[in-house]
């Protein structure tokens, strides 16, 4: 068993980095995820189909293509990348933040789908009732809508996290494979498989990958059940 826990510093780095990248990707996608899901579930506007298609694009495009598009837009000389670097000091290219961006984008369609479904299931009559009690739309959203979609929100967040843990193609295309900076678990496993004698390391990281993903799934299950019980949905 020793060989399993006896990770090299580089391997530890990959594990830590993966968790960090996936967590940031998930948290950062939540606000825009809820906003877009609301828009798609309830909005009536021109170009809704287009927006829907755009959101789902990362799901159907080859990850390498998504990664390359990110490189073009958010790279050092890309329009968005240059703007953000100049005005906010946020740099994506060849940084772990770029890995987070790539992972967030790849998991975004999954998150939006889950949240959108739960918003569509909300009984709008509840919101009308809250309105007659004096709650303005912002209060209605935060005290009625948000608690009612919490299970969907959790499901969406976990899906996004899991997707981020496994993301490989877009990340490696956008921010490359730099140990300690952008080398997440999948990239590290890939690197091991490319060198002679790397089998053991690859297997170790694979098992760790499985454990983290399973833990995330179980956590979401428990959380969703607790929320469900609190709401007494029969």
């Amino acid at each position: 068993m020793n060989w399993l826990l006896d990770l090299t510093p580089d391997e530890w780095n990959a594990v830590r980095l993966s968790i960090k990248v996936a967590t940031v990707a998930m948290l950062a996608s939540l606000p825009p995820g809820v906003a877009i899901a609301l828009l798609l579930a309830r909005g009536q506007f021109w170009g809704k189909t287009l927006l829907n298609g755009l959101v789902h694009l990362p799901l159907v495009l080859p990850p390498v293509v998504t990664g390359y598009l990110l490189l073009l837009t958010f790279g050092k000389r890309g329009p968005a990348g240059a703007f953000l670097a100049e005005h906010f000091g946020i740099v994506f290219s060849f940084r772990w933040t770029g890995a987070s961006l790539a992972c967030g984008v790849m998991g975004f369609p999954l998150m939006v789908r889950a949240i959108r479904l739960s918003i569509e299931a909300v009984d709008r009559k509840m919101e009308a009732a809250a309105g007659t009690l004096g709650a303005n739309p912002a209060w209605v959203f935060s005290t009625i809508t948000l608690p009612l979609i919490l299970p969907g929100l959790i499901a969406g967040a976990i899906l996004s996290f899991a997707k981020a843990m496994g993301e490989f193609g877009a990340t490696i295309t956008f921010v490359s494979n730099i140990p300690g900076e952008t080398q997440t678990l999948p990239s590290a496993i890939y690197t091991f498989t490319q060198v002679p004698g790397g089998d053991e390391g690859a297997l170790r990281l694979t098992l760790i990958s499985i454990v983290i993903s399973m833990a995330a799934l179980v956590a979401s299950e428990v959380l969703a059940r607790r929320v469900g019980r609190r709401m007494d949905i029969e």
Partner: protein
Amino acid sequence: MSVLVDISHRLGDFAIDARFESAGRLTALFGPSGSGKTTLINMIAGLIRPDKGCIEIDGRVLVDTGAGIFVPRHKRRIGMVFQDARLFPHMSVMSNLRYGRWFTPAAERYADMDSVVELLGIGPLLGRRPAKLSGGEKQRVAIGRALLASPRLLLMDEPLASLDEARKAEILPYIERLRDETKIPIVYVSHSVAEVARLASDVVMLAQGKVTASGPTEAVMQRLDLLPAEERGEGGAVLDTKVLRHDETFGMTVLGSAAGEIRVPRLAMKPGAPVRIRIRARDVMIATEKPTGLSALNILPGTIVAISPGEGATVEIGIDCNGATVLARITEQSRQVLKLRLGGKVFAVVKTVSFDRANTGAGLPLEVDG
């Protein structure tokens, strides 16, 4: 306190064109399903924006399409009790009740938790979740929630329609207390003659999106011809009476009314208590001379003041009994045989057993024998 509604609105093929004004304690919007009453109440609450018209509560303009005024629902301070309760499933009963309080300016909060909880008898429910309540309990909590927002006006959209008879009987007394013990005016939507006759001080009768009659309950309920077809059998005179005494030997209560004494099955009320009764037109017989050898106990002398054709082979006769009008539905054949005409002196005969819970409000748990 007054409510003024004057709107026209189209919903697909259905057009509403209604105007009414009421200053009653409890105004019933009454009509068959599809007559537009729920749409009207939703407009007062601000849930539907009318195409054209205005809505004023106590002189405060809530909607005036001409002037471009539309006060959003959360600024109207109008409480609403929905047919389906709509309690928030993720909150306890207590949190549901407190919800509206947050949004009411402190200076305008007049409802206090303890008295509302006491009024509606919901003390034992406070810690529960809405999913664990019965239909009647949910409805009482929903009423409490609306009240605790200290509204200027309370709207009730068929609050009893989805409940069975036993649950209805459980809630009705609470609504009566609400009407009599709080100062808040109520607009109540219903399609049931029994509910309207028992609760309403004023009635606005609606059919196909139009107001067909409005005014005090006793007057409007005389218009049997305006009642929805399925409720016509329930139609009849509404009389306000007082409990005079109980007849313990035979288990009866004697009520005093303008028309004279009326004997009904024993009511659980103290002498002096007001009772509103409804005498169904189909339960009233007419005699041209004072009947003898008859089992019916209530024989009210009066004068015929109205004769109008009813449905099919029937006529509806209005009899003025010393200022109170009693309605009778008889066959055209009987009318001709008895030679009934306007101004004729007759006796209206009503069996004591034709009174029941539905038309006397009998057997209520709230009032105890004296």
